[in-house]
């Protein structure tokens, strides 16, 4: 049951990844559909986060890492040395496991991306308002935009970080267990937002929480460590298939809670 207008936004092909001598990913492939939510699930240490961070070259920040294979964003290989990493990260935004607002005001947090891009004040304040509205924060914070972002609750901080990522108009948003530090209500809020956002953005989410994956995602990739501890994509397909009709026995074992 593939969409007729299916369009591949991010296409990872045969990606291998090393931290020094340790191979963390082995031959991982994944075709992320545009304006859909793709979930990466699997036990701890199976390389989900590593895989996710390759998509916007965040692994560049760790010395001694090496990636091979291809990750095509709209047909262009982001792993090639001539990729403009700064521009790439603008197109592929990221939401982290723990909310990490800058120790600045609420306004300055969201305005930081536009500020980097040199957008005008007027344009910036418009984008800040839009982004905060898109994340449902506007009504909660519009009277205290100049106050420190650190005074917000955990859930609000995470939505602020999402607004901050949206402000540079990305095409893809990578989410690394965005709700793992949040209470159930704040988690639900993030999940509702994701459904809203997928109309305009392509989302890839790493999650430990299988219920969350089955609730929010359109496609799911199940990952597992192979005998040499390198992560592999075991099975990838529509979420409904992965959870109800897994083809691989290992997927079924994990889904039904027999290990992991």
């Amino acid at each position, binding site marked *: 049951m593939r969409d007729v207008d299916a369009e591949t936004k991010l296409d990872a092909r045969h990606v291998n990844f090393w931290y020094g001598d340790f191979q963390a990913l082995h031959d991982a492939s994944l075709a992320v559909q545009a304006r859909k939510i793709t979930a990466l699930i699997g036990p701890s240490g199976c390389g989900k986060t590593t895989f996710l961070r390759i998509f916007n070259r965040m692994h560049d*920040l760790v*010395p001694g890492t090496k990636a091979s294979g291809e990750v095509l964003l709209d047909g262009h290989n982001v792993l090639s040395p001539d990729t403009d990493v700064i521009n*790439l*990260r*603008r197109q592929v935004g990221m939401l*982290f496991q723990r909310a*990490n607002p*800058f*120790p600045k005001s609420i306004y300055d947090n969201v305005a930081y991306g536009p500020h980097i891009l040199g957008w005008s004040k007027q344009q910036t304040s418009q984008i800040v308002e839009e982004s905060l509205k898109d994340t449902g924060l506007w009504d909660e914070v519009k009277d205290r935009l100049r106050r420190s972002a650190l005074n917000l609750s955990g859930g609000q901080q995470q939505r602020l970080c999402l607004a901050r990522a949206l402000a540079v108009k990305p095409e893809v948003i990578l989410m690394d267990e965005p709700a793992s530090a949040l209470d159930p209500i704040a988690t639900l809020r993030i999940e509702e937002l994701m459904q809203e956002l997928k109309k305009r953005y392509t989302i890839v989410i790493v999650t430990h929480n299988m219920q969350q994956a089955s609730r929010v995602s359109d496609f799911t990739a199940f990952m597992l460590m192979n005998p040499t501890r390198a992560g592999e994509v075991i099975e990838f397909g529509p979420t409904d298939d992965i959870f109800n009709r897994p083809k691989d026995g290992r997927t079924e074992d994990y889904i039904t809670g027999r290990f992991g």
Partner: protein
Amino acid sequence: MSRPLVRALVDRLVGGLVVLCVSVAAIPVLVLFLFVLINGLPGVLTPGFFTDPPYPQGVPGGGVANAIIGTLEIVGIGSLLAVPVGALIGIFLSEYGRNQVGNTVRFISDVFTGLPSIAFGIFGYTVVVLTTHHFSALSASIALAVLMLPVILRATETALVLVPNSLREAGLALGAPRWRVTLEIVVPAALGGIVTGALLAMARAAGETAPLLFTAFGNDIIQTNPLQPMGALSLTIFRNALVPYPNLQQQAWGAALLLVALVAATNILARIYVRRIQR
């Protein structure tokens, strides 16, 4: 003896030892403060102490205005030289210095921290005084700047390393170049620690005597030109303590009290500032 009893006894014993050690460390400091206060107050309360230059030996009265101006100016110019350079080196060490270059800089800085302060005076003397053929406040500022440098750069590095990596990642993930993330996010987040380090270095420099002996040299007239020899509070203390005139000795005590107050005030200021910024 039963075990709980032994435990209670050991607990008492160790607790007592800790209190003893703290007292041994704290009592001299308190005694010093009291001593300086009692001996220094009469000097500070002498009319003209803050406003007059010293009078010739044997003439009663006079003040330390020359030394107050000198200390402020010498340390001020020294800080203007040392703080920007030290902060930049600290930023380099924390953000780009995880390599051999960084380790070399750290090693040199540690060696500098351990040098006796008179060595910095010799440095100022050979590099500035000998080449300009002139004692000057500037040569003292340069000597003090080199002395302050390791304190500032280490404090800056420590403050920056404490900034969580997640903030750097958040900035980079927005497409910000590394240098902008460093200057616009990491440094502001660590400003409290950087400012504290700078103020502590200034406080230390203000109390130094040895680096000034053959750089600023001392001057009994009020001098504001940094290219001329200049007095300083620490020099007043050093010189006046050695002369047989009671009014000058009293002046030395007064200068000591003033210096202690200045250093204490700087430290307290630094703490208040950090507490405010951390809220």
